């Protein structure tokens, strides 16, 4: 049973970090209270995990044959990687850490499903590209609709307020559906949890992270995103939710942080301004290569020292 603790730890750190991408703007622009935001986030994360979380779980559990020990080691390694990176103030993807950790154990045990891995890596690269495209399509489309409505300053604000809240709820749903696999996906193959239990425990631990420890990150992310005008911020969150949800349906856990970076780049392209610095793009690149490599090394070490 103690082996599940590393998964809960993982879910908690994921929730405390990634809920910022979803409700950061709405909270920072004071359109919704922090408490309301985290409650909505928690509810929709759990609903997303329960209704659509299984596809991603199957992908992750298909990468390597897991045992109870390897599942524990993978979760612990991924959670440690994310925590280490958070201490270093580097925003990283739990999905990429988890896949790296699973690979580390797979290498040690000499069993990796490369076809599943290719699907995962393609999805990582496709995530920011997907949100750029989604933003390029949604921005003019919803913008046209908004112009058609001829809203005054008050009704327009109301539209954006509810837009941010609904996009946030959708984002939380997508986060739950997509990322729950990172948290408890590894325990399904080992038989420690069935899909429903995994979804509930994973969703619950992400929700716990959002409720207990997301405020600071939420404010930091909100501050960054709020530099965009409210309409752009709404489109950015909505595009992120759409893409992350799409990958949840396909069954590949992806990074909400990298998804939102793509959205912001999309807004920049449309408005002809530079919204992203080179440093941010390097961080995305690091997410693709550095995070899984570090998690891989940590998982390799943990599993070798404790169980091999």
């Amino acid at each position, binding site marked *: 049973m103690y082996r599940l603790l590393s998964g809960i730890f993982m879910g908690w750190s994921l929730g405390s970090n990634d809920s910022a991408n979803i409700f950061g703007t709405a909270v920072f622009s004071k359109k919704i209270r922090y408490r309301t935001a985290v409650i909505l986030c928690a509810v929709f994360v759990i609903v997303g995990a329960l209704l659509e979380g299984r596809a991603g779980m199957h992908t992750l559990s298909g990468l390597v044959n897991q045992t109870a020990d390897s599942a524990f080691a993978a979760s612990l390694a991924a959670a440690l990687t994310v925590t280490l990176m958070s201490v270093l103030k580097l925003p990283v993807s739990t999905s990429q850490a988890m896949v790296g950790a699973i690979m580390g154990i797979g290498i040690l045990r000499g069993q990796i499903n490369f076809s599943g891995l290719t699907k995962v890596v393609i999805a990582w690269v496709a995530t920011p590209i997907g949100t750029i495209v989604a933003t390029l399509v949604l921005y003019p489309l919803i913008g046209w609709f908004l112009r058609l409505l001829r809203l005054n300053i008050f009704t327009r604000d109301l539209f954006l307020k509810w837009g941010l809240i609904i996009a946030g709820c959708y984002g939380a749903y997508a986060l739950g559906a997509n990322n729950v696999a990172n948290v408890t996906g590894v325990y399904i193959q080992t038989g420690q949890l069935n899909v429903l239990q995994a979804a509930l425990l994973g969703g619950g631990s992400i929700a716990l992270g959002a409720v207990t420890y997301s405020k600071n990150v939420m404010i930091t992310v909100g501050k960054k995103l709020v530099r965009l*005008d409210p309409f752009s911020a709404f489109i950015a969150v909505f595009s992120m939710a759409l893409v992350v949800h799409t990958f949840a349906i396909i069954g590949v856990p992806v990074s909400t942080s990298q998804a939102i970076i793509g959205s912001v780049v999309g807004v920049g392209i449309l408005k002809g301004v530079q919204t992203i610095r080179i440093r941010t793009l390097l961080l995305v690149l690091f997410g693709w290569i550095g995070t899984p490599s570090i998690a891989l090394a940590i998982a390799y070490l943990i599993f070798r020292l404790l169980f091999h």
Partner: protein
Amino acid sequence: MLWKKEKSIIDKIKTYLDQVDRCRNRFRVCIERLILEPENAENPAILEEVHRSESKADDLRRSIELQLYERALIPESRGDVLGLLETLDAIPGMFQSLCYQLLLEKITFPDQFRERYLHLVDVNIKSYDLVREAVLGLFFSKDVKAQTDLVDAVESDSDHMERDLIRDIFSSKMDKADKILLKEIVINTGDISDQAETVKDRLILAIIKRKI
């Protein structure tokens, strides 16, 4: 339910603008009396009406501001609305000051300038009317381009009339001190359309910021 707070502010803004209109109408009556019948004993009472309507408009604006601070609108829009109301609210203040200036300083326009001055007043009132319509447009989803374009034209007319009037005042055979007093009144009257132009500039900025 969803937009109770916003609707209540919209209603208050409408009431506020109606109140400023009342002040504008009383100002027009008052200034005509002060110019054409400067010695009329009823003038202070009429001015009191201008003052009361200006004061009521001020109270309404403050109450709107308070309500706006209570989490209505996103901060960016709140700033725009507050800024617009504050710049617009300077206009009824100008109406009132002008009347007080005429009454307290016992300024009398010579016959040859009375009609021209009242025409200048009307042009400046028109600039207020236009900018008021434009502000209404932002709050009530109307196209404001026609009004904002006209504000510039009217302000420019007012500038020309001001200069001509001042030149003619100083070419007349009045006492120098009287000339200076009249000049001040003319300049202060022209300030109304300058202020209307400031409101229009803020309005355009608010519209541009919301362009998608």
